[in-house]
């Protein structure tokens, strides 16, 4: 299931790079996901003010 590594030196980033989009999805998720939590916090602040 995990594609064989073709680049010269193995690395975690290369492993995450399984096919089109996999590495990007991981990185984008890391960036965007916590924004939901920020949204919830700010929403609560506005509703309480």
């Amino acid at each position, binding site marked *: 299931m995990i594609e064989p590594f073709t*680049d010269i030196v193995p690395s975690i980033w290369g492993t995450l790079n399984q096919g089109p989009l996999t590495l990007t999805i991981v990185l984008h998720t*890391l960036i965007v996901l916590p924004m939901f939590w*920020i949204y919830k916090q700010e929403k609560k602040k*506005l509703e309480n003010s």
Partner: protein
Amino acid sequence: MSNKSVWTSIPFWRRSAAWATGVASILLILLTFDTMGQISMGTDADLQKGITKRVPAPTVINYHIDYKMSEKRGHEVPVIGKKEPLFGKELSPKDAAAMLHLGKLTSQAKNCMNCHTLLGNGAYYAPDLTKAWLDPKWEQMIAMTGSKTKEEAMVKFLMNPQNYPTHERRMPNLKITEKEAKALVAFLKHMSSIDTNGFPRNFSKTVEQFKQGGTNAH
């Protein structure tokens, strides 16, 4: 009670901007650590044991370098072969490093990058130098410069390029000394051994074509 939406709240966007910037920066730093490890120069021991590094040791200039299609990688890759000393002399790791150092220093001091591209970066007035060491043109230049080897032709050309024009656009004389010219050749040979993920594409295909006596150009 506020009717304001989070979507127009400055604190929301400010915090999100701070978060995104912070995470992206940290990811970049982590990736940089990984990449630095992968593009540091290899050692002479790597070459002797046949361990492939993206940027080989300076002593790669003692070896034959080629550029061939790799089915596994899906593009052309440098191939380091048998011993092929530069200027007929096999250099120690220390001497090879010194030559590479002088070559790179000279390439900057003479401002090569403002006419040529190196690894595709630079100016677009003169050819890319990434695989200059492997360029089939040198066969012609050996005859034009009255040399016996490719490296001799390269040195002669670099020292007096104005004498060997190949096009109406000529390389100027940059007062390159013989020592600097030899070092530049070492630098170019080393650069051609760097794994550039297949750039320039089709280079090896046309080398074959050229050797068979022709190109598709009109």
